[in-house]
């Protein structure tokens, strides 16, 4: 009776969590949705402890308290720029927790467990391990502790194939293993899973991080769901499956936004490695000559700012395109000030957000919301791309790949075919970037070539925008 009551309560919590996600449809209700999800999770965990009569076990309370304190500290001290690292780290923790639970279930029980349980347990073991090591590599890349270029080992493809084959062979072996050899085979599964995660993640280039994080997010859900299947845990199966498919949806959206397939991303095809970069150096204008051409003296810079200010003052319709460079320079506040100033002068101003602007899905929106840019000024690419034609001035702040017109023309480069913001269709383009070096994808940007209607203001975005602000 009590078992059925617990299952029904679990089901009610799942429905609550689902309703919470529905509320994420709109920024007006999203906060309530998140609180609803958190409340349901709290009820579900309490119910698990009560119905299994494990409330008095001290070790559980100590572990949960430790986890809660660390969790609070992480959530309070993380900056919005570091959000991708935190999400990747949490994906890794989730994967690791699932793998550990699977390991304990497989090896720690004296009672006989069924073959199906063993097989799902083995899958959870591998998926969890892949998620853990892959996420740690992603954190290292995002945090700049590791190169953001794809790392391709000698024989990378063969290594990948070998690890995949050994995973496929190992899993049924764990399922039919005698209790003596289970531990050994489980440890082996974990190790191979960890290696596979590293092999996958080191090949991903910096620009593809949004896709990699989405995929790891999905894997952490799948790991939880498979552990749930192995332990007949209704809550874990349902919630894990939701997280798993959420990650897949986001991965698909990100891939579409970059016109690449998940296979391309995992094999590092979407970012130029250092060698190919030199080999096809002829693609687009060469960065070094560009820099000399554009080597700006203080006077030419001042003249550029004056000209830019004059153009902006005369404009009626302005679109600002923020990129990750804005976040690196912490120029969000200046962007917000420019927005407010221009609106006060009666101009129409919108911000255009490319789906992969930033280092994770939706990252740019959060960076701007932090400085209180109203969210109804933020327009996703598909909603604003047709408006550039009728726009007087586009102000690009720290964006490169996502506004690169070469994506439409430079066949054979990683960004070819990727949908970009059509800033070159506007009457004037003002670019505030640090330098004229290629973006993460490594493809030169023809916007930097001298064009009549383009002004390039090189340097730190905070300084450039501040001087610009003084002029109008």
């Amino acid at each position, binding site marked *: 009776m009590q078992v059925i009551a617990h299952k029904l309560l679990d089901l009610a919590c799942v429905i609550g969590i689902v309703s919470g996600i529905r509320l994420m449809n709109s920024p007006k209700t999203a906060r309530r949705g998140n609180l609803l999800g958190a409340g349901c999770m709290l009820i579900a965990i309490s119910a698990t402890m009560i119905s299994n009569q*494990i409330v008095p076990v001290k070790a559980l309370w100590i572990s*949960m308290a430790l986890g809660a304190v*660390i969790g609070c500290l992480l959530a309070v001290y993380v900056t919005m720029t570091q959000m991708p690292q935190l999400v990747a780290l949490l994906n890794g923790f989730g994967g690791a927790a699932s793998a550990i639970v699977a390991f304990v279930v497989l090896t720690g029980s004296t009672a006989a467990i069924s073959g199906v349980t063993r097989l799902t347990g083995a899958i959870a073991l591998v998926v969890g391990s892949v998620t853990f090591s892959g996420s740690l590599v992603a954190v290292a890349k995002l945090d700049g502790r590791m190169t953001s270029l794809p790392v391709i080992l000698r024989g990378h493809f063969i290594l990948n194939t070998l690890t995949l084959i050994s995973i496929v062979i190992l899993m049924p072996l764990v399922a039919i293993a005698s209790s003596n050899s289970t531990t050994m085979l489980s440890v082996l599964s974990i190790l191979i899973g960890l290696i596979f995660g590293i092999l996958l993640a080191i090949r991903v280039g910096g620009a593809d991080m949004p896709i990699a994080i989405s995929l790891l*997010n999905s894997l952490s859900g799948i790991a939880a769901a498979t552990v749930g299947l192995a332990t007949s845990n209704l809550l874990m199966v349902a919630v894990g499956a939701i997280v798993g498919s959420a990650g897949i949806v986001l991965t698909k959206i990100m891939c579409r936004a970059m016109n690449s397939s998940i296979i391309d991303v995992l094999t590092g095809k979407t970012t130029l490695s250092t060698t190919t970069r030199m080999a096809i150096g002829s693609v687009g204008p060469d960065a070094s000559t560009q820099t000399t051409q554009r080597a700006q003296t203080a006077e030419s810079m001042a003249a550029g700012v004056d000209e830019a200010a004059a153009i902006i003052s005369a404009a009626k319709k302005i679109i600002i395109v923020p990129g990750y460079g804005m976040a690196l320079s912490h120029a969000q506040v200046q962007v917000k000030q420019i927005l407010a100033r221009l609106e006060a002068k009666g101009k129409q101003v919108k911000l255009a957000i490319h789906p992969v602007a930033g280092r994770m*899905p939706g990252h740019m929106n959060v960076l701007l919301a932090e400085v209180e840019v109203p969210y109804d000024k933020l327009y996703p690419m598909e909603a604003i791309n047709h408006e550039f034609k009728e726009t007087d001035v586009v102000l690009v702040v720290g964006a490169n790949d996502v506004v690169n017109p070469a994506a439409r023309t430079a066949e054979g480069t990683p960004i070819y075919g990727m949908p970009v913001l059509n800033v070159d269709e506007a009457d004037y383009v003002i670019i505030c970037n640090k330098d004229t070096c290629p973006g993460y994808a490594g493809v030169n940007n023809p916007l930097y070539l001298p064009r009549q209607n383009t002004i390039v203001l090189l340097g730190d975005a905070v300084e450039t925008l501040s001087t610009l602000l003084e002029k109008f």
Partner: protein
Amino acid sequence: MNDWLLPVLFIIAALAGYRLISAVPSLLHTPLMSGMNALSGVTVSGALLATAFAVSGRSELFGAIAVVLATINVVSGFLVTDRMLKMFKQDRL
């Protein structure tokens, strides 16, 4: 009953999740993702049971580590999502 119930639930939940998430605007994709982080910490319920019913000291230790990691996931995920969602404001001009 459990033999088929859970796989069916898995499929239903996955399909429901797919439809629900597709409806979330790109504006909120980052908080959505950190919210999903929190949810993937649901593995804490399995970790609690594995720790409490562990048959050896080793299993108990491993279980406790899993509880710590999964709790970090849940707590940090929900808190940071709330922190971000609080920031999204409409223009009040």
